[in-house]
């Protein structure tokens, strides 16, 4: 129980501050939890590991939760994952029940967050115990599985996997590192780039560029307008909030939280998938589906418990396999690397104190999020109104600090920021998907080592099938995810056909 001594007042203060800043980020449309974590990363450079993680976990939880505020008040999802909150939240706000809607969402968020924290606590150590036995062959197959899952659940399977492969390609630029058994030769670049790209692109400037700068460019193209609600919304009229609204919603909460946690575990799938899935399931099981979309509390409960359950879920593959579950946890990988820690199967066992303090940080951040939002919601609602001409320049400045400081002052990292900011902007324009790309970028160089080393030692491709029973199980899972995506595509085609006939 040494970890208790690590929990200083500073630790709790940072987790609380993280939640607050996260909520503000989440509440401003266009800013996401990922951006909050990326922009605030430089603050952790000089903090200890535990304090830094407390801050980042607070930002993560707060950022996902904050999105519900503009979803209800302005009918604009603050983060992509609160898209389904607008369906029922805004109609309630228009009826004058904004405060009731907000409080229902806040309670559901807390339940979802805590549920997923419990699952994380129970499940991540089991998974890592299992993953310790993996050799290079199984590790490669896990990454391969992660990429097929991303592809099968992205809106267009081929484009999803194409984006992932571009990420892998970008990660290979640089030296084939001797430290991992490479031959130290350069590849994929011209001679003049060698002094800059010897080590390849640094992870954090790439992430901050893709999630920070690219978003600013997209917003600038839209004119950086401030969001204007249709009309001033009265917070408290109509039915007041009472806890009995949750009566009979236990199954809904449990199901939505489980869906959120599970979707979080799948790499590369964002929060919007979790809430949309939970919302449509609730619609299937609802006693009166016609009410949903017109201001039914059950819709809010499904949406918000699912998107907050994502947080714990996305941390499971990160901490047990080293594979990030969503884009925010991808940025968290950067924070771990910064502290000189490698996440993977050995992480929990070798860093038990860190593991416990992370769990406490996660639960505490959820509680603080609940406290802040439940009792200070009226003030939070005003944050949505911070003008963008004040906010965006500051964000760009923070991105620069983060990129420059990561390797103790390398100007090329700042240029990397701009390169990937523009790249992310263009990529989203031409329809590439950023989440698979980032995951490909993070996993690419390990995939190379696992793949090439497996072949060098066994000399045959068949080893990927015959190495162990685990390999066969992994292949079955890969096949299942591909079949599932084909099934989804066929179903979508059938639906659109039948709709065309109806029209």
């Amino acid at each position, binding site marked *: 129980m040494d970890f208790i001594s690590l929990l200083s007042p500073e630790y709790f203060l940072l987790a609380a501050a993280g939640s607050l800043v996260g909520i503000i980020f989440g509440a401003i449309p266009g800013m996401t939890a990922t951006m909050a974590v990326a922009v605030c990363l*430089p603050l952790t*450079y*000089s903090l200890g590991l535990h304090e830094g993680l407390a801050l980042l976990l607070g930002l993560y939880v707060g950022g996902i939760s904050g999105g519900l505020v503009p979803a209800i008040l302005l009918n604009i999802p603050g983060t992509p994952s609160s898209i389904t909150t607008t369906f029922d939240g805004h109609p309630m706000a228009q009826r004058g029940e904004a405060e009731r809607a907000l409080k229902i969402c806040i309670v559901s968020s807390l339940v979802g967050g805590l549920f997923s924290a419990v699952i994380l606590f129970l499940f991540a150590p089991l998974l890592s115990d299992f993953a310790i036995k993996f050799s290079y062959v199984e590790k490669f197959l896990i990454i391969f599985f992660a990429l097929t899952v991303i592809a099968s659940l992205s809106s267009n399977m*081929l*484009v999803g996997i*194409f984006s992932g*492969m*571009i990420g*892998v*390609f970008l990660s*290979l630029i640089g030296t*084939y590192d001797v430290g991992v058994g*490479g*031959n*130290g*030769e*350069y*590849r*994929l670049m011209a001679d003049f780039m060698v002094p800059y790209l010897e080590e390849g692109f640094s992870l954090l400037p790439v992430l901050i560029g893709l999630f920070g*700068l690219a978003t*600013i*460019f997209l917003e*600038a*193209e839209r*004119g*950086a*307008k*401030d969001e204007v609600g249709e009309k001033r919304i009265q917070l408290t009229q109509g039915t007041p909030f009472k806890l009995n609204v949750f009566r009979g919603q236990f199954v809904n909460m449990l199901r939505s939280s489980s869906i959120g946690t599970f979707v979080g575990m799948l790499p590369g799938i964002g929060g919007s998938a979790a809430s949309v899935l939970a919302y449509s399931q609730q619609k299937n099981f609802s006693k009166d589906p016609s009410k949903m979309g017109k201001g039914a509390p059950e819709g809010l409960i499904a949406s918000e418990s699912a998107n907050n359950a994502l947080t714990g879920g996305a941390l499971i593959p990160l901490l047990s396999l080293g594979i990030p579950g969503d884009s925010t946890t991808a940025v968290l990988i950067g924070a771990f690397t910064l502290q000189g820690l490698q996440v993977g199967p050995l992480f929990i066992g070798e860093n038990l104190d860190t593991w416990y303090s992370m769990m406490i940080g996660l639960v505490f951040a959820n509680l603080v999020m609940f406290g802040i939002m439940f009792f200070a919601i009226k003030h939070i609602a005003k944050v949505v109104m911070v*003008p*963008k*001409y*004040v906010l*965006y*320049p*500051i964000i*760009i*400045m*923070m991105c*620069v*600090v983060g990129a*420059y*400081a990561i390797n*103790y*002052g390398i*100007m090329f990292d*700042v*240029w990397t920021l*701009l390169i990937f*900011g*523009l790249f992310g902007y263009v990529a989203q*324009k*031409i329809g590439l998907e950023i989440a698979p790309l980032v995951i490909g970028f993070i996993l690419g160089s390990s*995939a190379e080592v696992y793949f*090439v080393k497996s*072949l*060098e030692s066994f*000399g*045959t*491709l*068949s080893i990927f099938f015959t190495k162990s029973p685990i390999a066969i199980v992994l292949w079955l899972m890969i096949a299942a995810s591909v079949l599932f995506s084909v099934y989804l595509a066929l179903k979508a085609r059938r639906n659109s056909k039948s709709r065309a006939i109806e029209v």
Partner: protein
Amino acid sequence: MSQTLTSLLEVSIDFDQSHLFFPKLVVTLLAGMLLLIAVIHRARLVEIVRTRGAGLAFFEENADKFRLFSTVGLIVIYFVSMDYVGQLFPNTGLGFLFCSIAFIAALSLVYVHEVTRSVLLVIACNALIAPLAVWYVLGSLFDITLP
């Protein structure tokens, strides 16, 4: 039969060239997928070629190109000048401080829609206070390297 099958799967990698093995594979896969995407969406491609890209729009409708390109331009100026000024005052972070003040003021003026006296006051305060706070807290208190 089974003999030929196993020999098909056999791969030997020359260590001197091993740095190119995986990149070659990835590039091949990328090219293959690009081709596949082109084949699947060939109808749309033909359409695009026929109309000479008339239906394609890179920018959104009513895109604010002034704000977009000003952002990119200002960022480039910001980075270049930060590096330059930073070398005049090495290891002080002053390059960052001075250039950030100018950058934030300029970008705010680009983004603002209605200029009034109070808005200008907000912009000026923001441009002074935000970089100073970051420079002092991160640069001096936390010892983070700044340009």
